[in-house]
Protein backbone atom coordinates (compact mmCIF):
# COMPACT_ATOMS: atom_id res chain seq x y z
CA UNK A 1 0.00 0.00 0.00
CA UNK A 2 2.77 2.41 0.99
CA UNK A 3 4.80 1.40 -2.11
CA UNK A 4 1.75 2.13 -4.30
CA UNK A 5 1.23 5.55 -2.70
CA UNK A 6 4.90 6.39 -3.20
CA UNK A 7 4.61 5.42 -6.88
CA UNK A 8 1.55 7.68 -7.30
CA UNK A 9 3.33 10.61 -5.62
CA UNK A 10 6.41 10.06 -7.79
CA UNK A 11 4.28 9.93 -10.95
CA UNK A 12 2.49 13.14 -9.93
CA UNK A 13 5.80 14.88 -9.24
CA UNK A 14 7.13 13.73 -12.59
CA UNK A 15 4.01 15.04 -14.28
CA UNK A 16 4.37 18.40 -12.53
CA UNK A 17 8.03 18.56 -13.54
CA UNK A 18 7.22 17.73 -17.15
CA UNK A 19 4.41 20.30 -17.22
CA UNK A 20 6.76 22.92 -15.79
CA UNK A 21 9.32 22.09 -18.47
CA UNK A 22 6.63 22.37 -21.09
CA UNK A 23 5.52 25.74 -19.79
CA UNK A 24 9.11 26.91 -19.64
CA UNK A 25 9.53 25.84 -23.24
CA UNK A 26 6.42 27.75 -24.20
CA UNK A 27 7.59 30.89 -22.42
CA UNK A 28 10.88 30.70 -24.26
CA UNK A 29 9.14 30.68 -27.64
CA UNK A 30 10.55 33.42 -29.78
CA UNK A 31 9.38 35.43 -32.73
CA UNK A 32 11.51 35.04 -35.80
CA UNK A 33 12.35 36.87 -39.03
CA UNK A 34 10.53 40.13 -39.60
CA UNK A 35 8.34 39.48 -36.56
CA UNK A 36 11.13 40.01 -34.01
CA UNK A 37 10.56 43.75 -33.87
CA UNK A 38 7.07 43.10 -32.50
CA UNK A 39 8.36 41.16 -29.48
CA UNK A 40 7.07 43.85 -27.10
CA UNK A 41 3.58 43.94 -28.53
CA UNK A 42 0.92 42.56 -26.15
CA UNK A 43 -0.32 40.24 -28.90
CA UNK A 44 -1.52 37.56 -26.50
CA UNK A 45 -4.10 40.01 -25.17
CA UNK A 46 -7.34 39.00 -26.91
CA UNK A 47 -8.32 42.67 -27.36
CA UNK A 48 -5.18 43.41 -29.36
CA UNK A 49 -5.72 42.80 -33.08
CA UNK A 50 -2.77 44.62 -34.59
CA UNK A 51 0.77 45.46 -33.54
CA UNK A 52 2.70 48.59 -34.37
CA UNK A 53 6.42 49.28 -34.39
CA UNK A 54 7.35 52.74 -35.53
CA UNK A 55 10.81 54.27 -35.56
CA UNK A 56 11.14 58.00 -36.11
CA UNK A 57 14.57 58.52 -37.58
CA UNK A 58 14.48 62.22 -38.38
CA UNK A 59 12.24 65.25 -38.40
CA UNK A 60 11.83 68.15 -36.04
CA UNK A 61 9.79 69.59 -33.24
CA UNK A 62 9.26 73.32 -33.35
CA UNK A 63 7.99 74.68 -30.06
CA UNK A 64 7.32 78.39 -30.35
CA UNK A 65 10.59 79.92 -31.49
CA UNK A 66 12.75 76.88 -30.67
CA UNK A 67 13.42 74.13 -33.16
CA UNK A 68 14.78 70.76 -32.04
CA UNK A 69 15.83 68.42 -34.84
CA UNK A 70 15.23 64.71 -34.28
CA UNK A 71 18.67 63.14 -34.71
CA UNK A 72 18.36 60.01 -32.60
CA UNK A 73 15.72 57.35 -33.27
CA UNK A 74 12.52 57.42 -31.22
CA UNK A 75 10.47 54.23 -31.03
CA UNK A 76 6.72 53.93 -30.59
CA UNK A 77 5.49 50.37 -30.11
CA UNK A 78 2.44 48.55 -28.82
CA UNK A 79 -0.83 46.99 -29.81
CA UNK A 80 -4.01 48.28 -31.42
CA UNK A 81 -7.55 47.10 -30.87
CA UNK A 82 -10.50 46.86 -33.19
CA UNK A 83 -11.53 49.94 -35.12
CA UNK A 84 -14.13 51.98 -33.26
CA UNK A 85 -16.44 53.33 -35.97
CA UNK A 86 -17.82 56.02 -33.67
CA UNK A 87 -14.46 57.39 -32.55
CA UNK A 88 -12.80 56.51 -35.85
CA UNK A 89 -9.81 55.21 -33.93
CA UNK A 90 -8.29 52.04 -32.58
CA UNK A 91 -7.45 51.87 -28.90
CA UNK A 92 -3.74 51.55 -28.17
CA UNK A 93 -2.15 49.04 -25.79
CA UNK A 94 1.15 49.54 -23.97
CA UNK A 95 4.30 47.67 -24.95
CA UNK A 96 4.98 44.69 -22.72
CA UNK A 97 8.44 45.98 -21.75
CA UNK A 98 6.90 49.25 -20.54
CA UNK A 99 8.64 51.31 -23.21
CA UNK A 100 5.74 52.35 -25.42
CA UNK A 101 7.46 55.59 -26.44
CA UNK A 102 11.22 55.46 -26.02
CA UNK A 103 12.71 58.32 -24.02
CA UNK A 104 15.37 59.45 -26.47
CA UNK A 105 17.15 62.69 -25.57
CA UNK A 106 17.62 65.05 -28.52
CA UNK A 107 20.17 67.83 -28.48
CA UNK A 108 18.72 71.35 -28.19
CA UNK A 109 20.68 73.62 -30.55
CA UNK A 110 22.32 76.49 -28.72
CA UNK A 111 22.38 74.60 -25.44
CA UNK A 112 21.67 76.33 -22.16
CA UNK A 113 22.35 79.82 -23.50
CA UNK A 114 19.87 79.10 -26.26
CA UNK A 115 17.05 78.83 -23.79
CA UNK A 116 18.33 80.87 -20.82
CA UNK A 117 20.17 83.91 -22.21
CA UNK A 118 22.79 85.10 -19.73
CA UNK A 119 22.60 88.80 -20.54
CA UNK A 120 18.92 89.32 -19.80
CA UNK A 121 18.74 87.09 -16.74
CA UNK A 122 18.50 88.18 -13.07
CA UNK A 123 21.78 88.31 -11.11
CA UNK A 124 21.26 84.99 -9.35
CA UNK A 125 20.43 83.17 -12.58
CA UNK A 126 23.36 84.87 -14.31
CA UNK A 127 25.76 83.68 -11.59
CA UNK A 128 24.47 80.14 -11.84
CA UNK A 129 24.70 80.12 -15.63
CA UNK A 130 28.30 81.31 -15.32
CA UNK A 131 29.01 78.34 -13.05
CA UNK A 132 27.48 75.91 -15.50
CA UNK A 133 29.35 77.49 -18.40
CA UNK A 134 32.64 77.22 -16.53
CA UNK A 135 31.96 73.57 -15.82
CA UNK A 136 30.94 72.73 -19.37
CA UNK A 137 27.42 71.80 -18.30
CA UNK A 138 25.78 73.75 -21.05
CA UNK A 139 24.29 70.94 -23.12
CA UNK A 140 20.50 70.75 -23.02
CA UNK A 141 18.51 67.74 -24.07
CA UNK A 142 14.89 67.63 -25.05
CA UNK A 143 13.20 64.30 -24.48
CA UNK A 144 9.78 63.46 -25.77
CA UNK A 145 7.78 61.50 -23.20
CA UNK A 146 4.36 59.97 -23.27
CA UNK A 147 1.94 62.10 -21.23
CA UNK A 148 -0.51 59.87 -19.43
CA UNK A 149 -0.79 56.22 -20.30
CA UNK A 150 -0.52 54.26 -23.52
CA UNK A 151 -4.30 53.86 -23.54
CA UNK A 152 -4.54 57.61 -24.23
CA UNK A 153 -2.92 57.03 -27.63
CA UNK A 154 -5.28 56.53 -30.56
CA UNK A 155 -4.39 55.11 -33.93
CA UNK A 156 -6.21 54.94 -37.25
CA UNK A 157 -4.54 52.54 -39.70
CA UNK A 158 -6.95 53.53 -42.46
CA UNK A 159 -5.90 57.18 -42.23
CA UNK A 160 -2.24 56.16 -42.02
CA UNK A 161 -2.43 54.38 -45.37
CA UNK A 162 -4.92 56.72 -47.05
CA UNK A 163 -2.99 59.94 -46.38
CA UNK A 164 -6.04 61.70 -44.99
CA UNK A 165 -7.41 62.33 -41.53
CA UNK A 166 -5.71 61.81 -38.19
CA UNK A 167 -3.55 58.70 -38.20
CA UNK A 168 -2.06 58.98 -34.73
CA UNK A 169 -3.20 60.89 -31.69
CA UNK A 170 -0.21 61.14 -29.39
CA UNK A 171 -0.32 62.90 -26.00
CA UNK A 172 3.23 63.97 -25.13
CA UNK A 173 5.26 66.19 -22.85
CA UNK A 174 8.69 67.62 -23.55
CA UNK A 175 11.32 67.13 -20.86
CA UNK A 176 14.08 69.75 -20.96
CA UNK A 177 17.15 68.33 -19.28
CA UNK A 178 20.22 70.05 -17.89
CA UNK A 179 21.59 70.17 -14.32
CA UNK A 180 20.72 73.87 -14.19
CA UNK A 181 17.12 73.22 -15.24
CA UNK A 182 16.64 70.50 -12.62
CA UNK A 183 14.79 67.23 -13.05
CA UNK A 184 11.29 68.57 -13.50
CA UNK A 185 11.48 71.05 -16.34
CA UNK A 186 8.61 70.10 -18.65
CA UNK A 187 6.44 71.59 -21.32
CA UNK A 188 3.21 69.67 -20.99
CA UNK A 189 2.18 67.17 -18.36
CA UNK A 190 -0.03 64.14 -17.95
CA UNK A 191 -2.82 66.43 -16.78
CA UNK A 192 -2.20 69.02 -19.49
CA UNK A 193 -0.53 67.22 -22.36
CA UNK A 194 0.61 68.43 -25.73
CA UNK A 195 -1.70 66.50 -28.06
CA UNK A 196 -0.35 65.77 -31.49
CA UNK A 197 -2.97 64.88 -34.08
CA UNK A 198 -0.57 63.48 -36.61
CA UNK A 199 -1.53 62.93 -40.21
CA UNK A 200 0.10 61.53 -43.30
CA UNK A 201 -2.10 63.89 -45.30
CA UNK A 202 -2.25 67.68 -45.28
CA UNK A 203 -2.65 69.80 -42.17
CA UNK A 204 -4.93 72.82 -41.81
CA UNK A 205 -3.32 74.88 -39.05
CA UNK A 206 -4.29 78.30 -37.78
CA UNK A 207 -2.07 81.21 -38.91
CA UNK A 208 0.75 82.01 -38.94
CA UNK A 209 1.51 78.35 -39.76
CA UNK A 210 0.56 77.19 -43.24
CA UNK A 211 -0.54 73.71 -44.36
CA UNK A 212 2.15 71.09 -44.58
CA UNK A 213 1.94 67.57 -45.97
CA UNK A 214 2.85 64.22 -44.54
CA UNK A 215 3.30 60.99 -46.46
CA UNK A 216 2.17 57.42 -45.98
CA UNK A 217 5.52 56.22 -47.22
CA UNK A 218 6.44 53.46 -49.58
CA UNK A 219 4.46 50.37 -48.70
CA UNK A 220 6.02 46.94 -48.85
CA UNK A 221 4.63 43.63 -47.63
CA UNK A 222 6.91 41.26 -45.79
CA UNK A 223 6.41 37.73 -44.47
CA UNK A 224 3.93 36.89 -47.24
CA UNK A 225 1.53 39.74 -46.62
CA UNK A 226 1.63 39.46 -42.82
CA UNK A 227 3.74 42.56 -42.20
CA UNK A 228 3.24 45.94 -43.84
CA UNK A 229 6.24 48.23 -43.76
CA UNK A 230 5.87 51.90 -44.66
CA UNK A 231 9.30 53.36 -45.36
CA UNK A 232 9.78 57.14 -45.57
CA UNK A 233 6.60 57.62 -43.62
CA UNK A 234 6.04 61.24 -42.60
CA UNK A 235 3.61 62.17 -39.85
CA UNK A 236 2.93 65.85 -39.38
CA UNK A 237 0.95 68.23 -37.21
CA UNK A 238 1.36 71.99 -37.02
CA UNK A 239 -1.94 72.91 -35.41
CA UNK A 240 -1.15 71.92 -31.83
CA UNK A 241 -0.77 74.15 -28.82
CA UNK A 242 1.57 73.72 -25.89
CA UNK A 243 1.09 74.80 -22.30
CA UNK A 244 3.64 76.94 -20.49
CA UNK A 245 6.78 75.27 -19.16
CA UNK A 246 6.79 74.23 -15.53
CA UNK A 247 9.32 73.28 -12.89
CA UNK A 248 12.44 74.65 -14.57
CA UNK A 249 15.43 75.65 -12.44
CA UNK A 250 14.80 73.62 -9.28
CA UNK A 251 14.49 75.94 -6.30
CA UNK A 252 14.93 78.88 -8.67
CA UNK A 253 11.93 77.77 -10.68
CA UNK A 254 10.11 81.02 -9.92
CA UNK A 255 12.96 82.84 -11.71
CA UNK A 256 14.01 80.38 -14.42
CA UNK A 257 10.61 79.11 -15.65
CA UNK A 258 9.43 82.58 -16.77
CA UNK A 259 12.74 83.06 -18.64
CA UNK A 260 12.26 79.80 -20.54
CA UNK A 261 8.65 80.66 -21.23
CA UNK A 262 9.79 83.99 -22.70
CA UNK A 263 12.47 82.27 -24.75
CA UNK A 264 10.02 79.79 -26.23
CA UNK A 265 7.79 82.66 -27.29
CA UNK A 266 4.21 82.07 -28.33
CA UNK A 267 3.30 78.40 -28.17
CA UNK A 268 -0.37 78.66 -28.94
CA UNK A 269 -1.80 76.73 -31.93
CA UNK A 270 -0.28 77.88 -35.19
CA UNK A 271 3.18 78.46 -33.76
CA UNK A 272 4.33 74.87 -33.30
CA UNK A 273 5.20 72.02 -35.62
CA UNK A 274 5.94 68.31 -35.32
CA UNK A 275 7.42 66.42 -38.24
CA UNK A 276 8.20 62.75 -37.63
CA UNK A 277 9.93 60.85 -40.44
CA UNK A 278 10.67 57.17 -40.26
CA UNK A 279 9.48 53.64 -40.82
CA UNK A 280 6.16 52.26 -39.59
CA UNK A 281 5.63 48.51 -39.45
CA UNK A 282 2.36 46.80 -38.63
CA UNK A 283 1.28 43.20 -38.33
CA UNK A 284 -1.57 41.23 -36.81
CA UNK A 285 -1.73 39.47 -33.46
CA UNK A 286 -2.81 36.32 -35.29
CA UNK A 287 0.36 36.34 -37.39
CA UNK A 288 2.52 36.78 -34.28
CA UNK A 289 0.72 34.01 -32.39
CA UNK A 290 1.21 31.69 -35.33
CA UNK A 291 4.89 32.58 -35.67
CA UNK A 292 5.36 32.06 -31.94
CA UNK A 293 3.73 28.63 -32.09
CA UNK A 294 5.84 27.63 -35.04
CA UNK A 295 9.04 28.44 -33.17
CA UNK A 296 8.82 26.83 -29.73
Amino acid at each position, binding site marked *: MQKHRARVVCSAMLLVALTALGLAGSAQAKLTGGYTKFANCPYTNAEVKKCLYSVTESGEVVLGSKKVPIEKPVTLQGGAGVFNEEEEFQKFYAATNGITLSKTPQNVPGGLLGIVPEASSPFLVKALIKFFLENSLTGVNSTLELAGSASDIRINEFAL*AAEEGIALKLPVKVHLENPFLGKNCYVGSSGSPITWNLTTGETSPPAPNTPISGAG*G*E*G*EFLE*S*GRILQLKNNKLVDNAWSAPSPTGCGGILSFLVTPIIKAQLGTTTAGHNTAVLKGTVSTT*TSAALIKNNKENP
Partner: protein
Amino acid sequence: MRIKATAIGTALAALAVLCAVFASSASAAPAWKFEAKSLEGSEVILGGALESSLTIPGLTTTCENFLYKLSIKNEAGTGKGEVTELPLYNCTTNTEACAVEKIGAEKLPWPSHLATVSSSPYIIIEGVRVGIVYSGEECAVGGILVAVTGSAGGLIDNTTETATFNNTTLAATGTALKALSGKAEWSGVFPTEAFQWHREQALSAS
Protein backbone atom coordinates in the same frame (compact mmCIF):
# COMPACT_ATOMS: atom_id res chain seq x y z
CA MET B 1 26.44 93.82 -93.81
CA ARG B 2 25.73 91.06 -96.30
CA ILE B 3 27.31 88.56 -93.88
CA LYS B 4 24.92 89.68 -91.12
CA ALA B 5 21.92 89.31 -93.44
CA THR B 6 23.08 85.81 -94.44
CA ALA B 7 23.50 84.81 -90.79
CA ILE B 8 20.03 86.03 -89.91
CA GLY B 9 18.63 84.22 -92.95
CA THR B 10 20.34 80.98 -91.88
CA ALA B 11 19.05 81.31 -88.33
CA LEU B 12 15.51 81.88 -89.57
CA ALA B 13 15.75 78.87 -91.86
CA ALA B 14 17.00 76.73 -88.97
CA LEU B 15 14.15 77.99 -86.81
CA ALA B 16 11.65 77.18 -89.55
CA VAL B 17 13.03 73.64 -89.83
CA LEU B 18 12.85 73.20 -86.03
CA CYS B 19 9.28 74.49 -85.98
CA ALA B 20 8.35 72.10 -88.75
CA VAL B 21 9.88 69.17 -86.83
CA PHE B 22 8.02 70.04 -83.63
CA ALA B 23 4.81 70.65 -85.53
CA SER B 24 5.04 67.25 -87.19
CA SER B 25 5.79 65.66 -83.79
CA ALA B 26 2.77 67.37 -82.24
CA SER B 27 0.49 66.38 -85.08
CA ALA B 28 1.66 62.81 -84.73
CA ALA B 29 -0.84 62.09 -81.95
CA PRO B 30 -2.53 58.91 -83.19
CA ALA B 31 -6.20 58.54 -84.00
CA TRP B 32 -8.48 55.52 -83.69
CA LYS B 33 -8.93 53.80 -87.03
CA PHE B 34 -11.07 50.95 -88.31
CA GLU B 35 -9.85 49.19 -91.43
CA ALA B 36 -7.26 52.00 -91.73
CA LYS B 37 -9.97 54.69 -91.82
CA SER B 38 -10.33 57.27 -89.08
CA LEU B 39 -13.19 56.58 -86.72
CA GLU B 40 -16.06 58.97 -87.13
CA GLY B 41 -18.48 59.28 -84.27
CA SER B 42 -17.89 56.93 -81.38
CA GLU B 43 -17.45 53.25 -80.76
CA VAL B 44 -17.45 50.94 -77.79
CA ILE B 45 -14.58 48.61 -77.11
CA LEU B 46 -15.33 45.70 -74.83
CA GLY B 47 -13.03 42.97 -73.67
CA GLY B 48 -11.35 41.02 -70.95
CA ALA B 49 -7.70 40.96 -70.00
CA LEU B 50 -5.79 37.98 -71.28
CA GLU B 51 -3.76 38.24 -68.11
CA SER B 52 -3.63 40.97 -65.50
CA SER B 53 -2.11 41.48 -62.09
CA LEU B 54 -1.46 44.29 -59.70
CA THR B 55 1.56 44.25 -57.45
CA ILE B 56 2.22 46.32 -54.37
CA PRO B 57 5.77 45.24 -53.38
CA GLY B 58 5.35 41.88 -51.63
CA LEU B 59 1.68 41.34 -52.52
CA THR B 60 0.35 40.51 -55.99
CA THR B 61 -3.36 40.51 -56.74
CA THR B 62 -4.55 38.65 -59.81
CA CYS B 63 -8.05 38.65 -61.26
CA GLU B 64 -9.28 35.82 -63.45
CA ASN B 65 -11.95 38.07 -64.91
CA PHE B 66 -10.65 41.56 -65.62
CA LEU B 67 -13.19 43.05 -68.00
CA TYR B 68 -13.40 46.57 -69.38
CA LYS B 69 -15.64 48.80 -71.43
CA LEU B 70 -14.04 51.70 -73.25
CA SER B 71 -15.84 54.23 -75.39
CA ILE B 72 -13.64 55.80 -78.06
CA LYS B 73 -13.81 58.71 -80.51
CA ASN B 74 -11.48 61.06 -82.35
CA GLU B 75 -11.26 64.71 -81.42
CA ALA B 76 -9.30 67.03 -83.70
CA GLY B 77 -7.51 64.03 -85.15
CA THR B 78 -6.49 62.58 -81.79
CA GLY B 79 -7.88 59.41 -80.32
CA LYS B 80 -9.76 60.00 -77.07
CA GLY B 81 -12.07 57.98 -74.93
CA GLU B 82 -13.06 56.91 -71.46
CA VAL B 83 -13.18 53.72 -69.48
CA THR B 84 -16.78 53.43 -68.39
CA GLU B 85 -16.85 49.99 -66.77
CA LEU B 86 -14.23 47.76 -65.21
CA PRO B 87 -15.77 44.77 -63.46
CA LEU B 88 -13.26 42.60 -61.63
CA TYR B 89 -14.06 39.06 -60.52
CA ASN B 90 -12.38 36.02 -59.04
CA CYS B 91 -9.45 37.91 -57.61
CA THR B 92 -6.80 36.27 -55.43
CA THR B 93 -3.41 37.13 -54.00
CA ASN B 94 -0.12 35.28 -54.07
CA THR B 95 -0.20 34.85 -50.29
CA GLU B 96 -2.02 32.52 -47.93
CA ALA B 97 -2.57 35.33 -45.45
CA CYS B 98 -4.48 37.77 -47.64
CA ALA B 99 -7.64 37.13 -49.64
CA VAL B 100 -9.47 39.69 -51.74
CA GLU B 101 -12.73 40.54 -50.01
CA LYS B 102 -13.79 43.36 -52.34
CA ILE B 103 -12.31 44.94 -55.42
CA GLY B 104 -13.76 47.52 -57.75
CA ALA B 105 -13.07 50.44 -60.01
CA GLU B 106 -14.01 53.77 -58.42
CA LYS B 107 -14.81 57.20 -59.79
CA LEU B 108 -15.56 56.02 -63.32
CA PRO B 109 -15.39 57.13 -66.09
CA TRP B 110 -11.62 57.43 -66.45
CA PRO B 111 -10.58 59.64 -69.39
CA SER B 112 -8.12 58.29 -71.93
CA HIS B 113 -6.21 59.53 -74.96
CA LEU B 114 -3.78 58.20 -77.49
CA ALA B 115 -0.18 59.36 -77.68
CA THR B 116 2.90 58.51 -79.67
CA VAL B 117 6.07 57.63 -77.82
CA SER B 118 9.17 56.68 -79.81
CA SER B 119 7.04 56.11 -82.91
CA SER B 120 4.71 53.67 -81.13
CA PRO B 121 1.06 54.31 -80.25
CA TYR B 122 0.06 54.27 -76.60
CA ILE B 123 -3.23 54.61 -74.79
CA ILE B 124 -3.01 56.68 -71.62
CA ILE B 125 -5.70 56.23 -69.00
CA GLU B 126 -6.00 58.92 -66.36
CA GLY B 127 -7.77 59.11 -63.04
CA VAL B 128 -7.36 55.40 -62.36
CA ARG B 129 -8.75 54.41 -58.97
CA VAL B 130 -9.25 50.83 -57.89
CA GLY B 131 -10.27 50.07 -54.32
CA ILE B 132 -9.25 46.75 -52.80
CA VAL B 133 -10.27 45.42 -49.42
CA TYR B 134 -8.21 42.44 -48.33
CA SER B 135 -9.29 40.00 -45.66
CA GLY B 136 -7.55 37.45 -43.51
CA GLU B 137 -6.83 37.27 -39.80
CA GLU B 138 -3.10 37.28 -40.49
CA CYS B 139 -3.17 39.78 -43.35
CA ALA B 140 -1.40 43.03 -42.43
CA VAL B 141 -3.99 45.08 -44.31
CA GLY B 142 -7.00 42.92 -43.49
CA GLY B 143 -10.12 45.08 -43.50
CA ILE B 144 -8.30 48.17 -44.74
CA LEU B 145 -9.28 49.80 -48.03
CA VAL B 146 -6.20 49.93 -50.24
CA ALA B 147 -6.64 52.43 -53.06
CA VAL B 148 -4.64 52.08 -56.26
CA THR B 149 -4.55 55.48 -57.95
CA GLY B 150 -2.80 57.30 -60.75
CA SER B 151 -2.52 57.04 -64.50
CA ALA B 152 -1.38 54.22 -66.76
CA GLY B 153 -0.02 54.08 -70.29
CA GLY B 154 -0.30 50.94 -72.39
CA LEU B 155 1.39 50.06 -75.67
CA ILE B 156 -1.03 49.39 -78.52
CA ASP B 157 -0.04 46.62 -80.88
CA ASN B 158 -1.93 47.16 -84.13
CA THR B 159 -1.03 43.70 -85.38
CA THR B 160 -2.40 41.72 -82.47
CA GLU B 161 -5.00 44.40 -81.61
CA THR B 162 -4.01 44.46 -77.97
CA ALA B 163 -2.97 47.04 -75.41
CA THR B 164 -0.21 45.96 -73.05
CA PHE B 165 0.32 47.61 -69.69
CA ASN B 166 3.45 46.96 -67.64
CA ASN B 167 6.32 48.76 -65.91
CA THR B 168 8.00 49.51 -69.24
CA THR B 169 4.90 51.01 -70.85
CA LEU B 170 4.11 53.06 -67.74
CA ALA B 171 7.67 54.39 -67.65
CA ALA B 172 7.62 55.14 -71.40
CA THR B 173 4.51 57.26 -71.03
CA GLY B 174 5.58 58.93 -67.79
CA THR B 175 2.60 57.47 -65.98
CA ALA B 176 2.54 55.78 -62.59
CA LEU B 177 0.21 53.99 -60.20
CA LYS B 178 0.39 54.35 -56.44
CA ALA B 179 -0.88 52.17 -53.62
CA LEU B 180 -0.19 52.62 -49.92
CA SER B 181 1.78 55.71 -50.99
CA GLY B 182 4.32 53.57 -52.82
CA LYS B 183 4.67 52.41 -56.37
CA ALA B 184 2.23 49.81 -57.63
CA GLU B 185 2.92 47.70 -60.68
CA TRP B 186 0.18 46.78 -63.08
CA SER B 187 0.68 44.31 -65.85
CA GLY B 188 -1.99 43.24 -68.28
CA VAL B 189 -2.69 42.49 -71.91
CA PHE B 190 -6.05 43.70 -73.16
CA PRO B 191 -7.54 42.83 -76.55
CA THR B 192 -9.04 45.84 -78.32
CA GLU B 193 -12.11 44.80 -80.18
CA ALA B 194 -15.06 46.91 -81.32
CA PHE B 195 -18.42 45.90 -79.98
CA GLN B 196 -20.87 48.35 -81.55
CA TRP B 197 -20.71 49.68 -85.16
CA HIS B 198 -17.37 48.27 -86.23
CA ARG B 199 -17.59 44.65 -85.12
CA GLU B 200 -14.97 42.38 -86.60
CA GLN B 201 -13.20 45.34 -88.21
CA ALA B 202 -9.47 45.75 -87.63
CA LEU B 203 -8.88 48.41 -84.99
CA SER B 204 -5.64 50.35 -85.00
CA ALA B 205 -4.16 53.48 -83.50
CA SER B 206 -1.95 55.47 -85.81
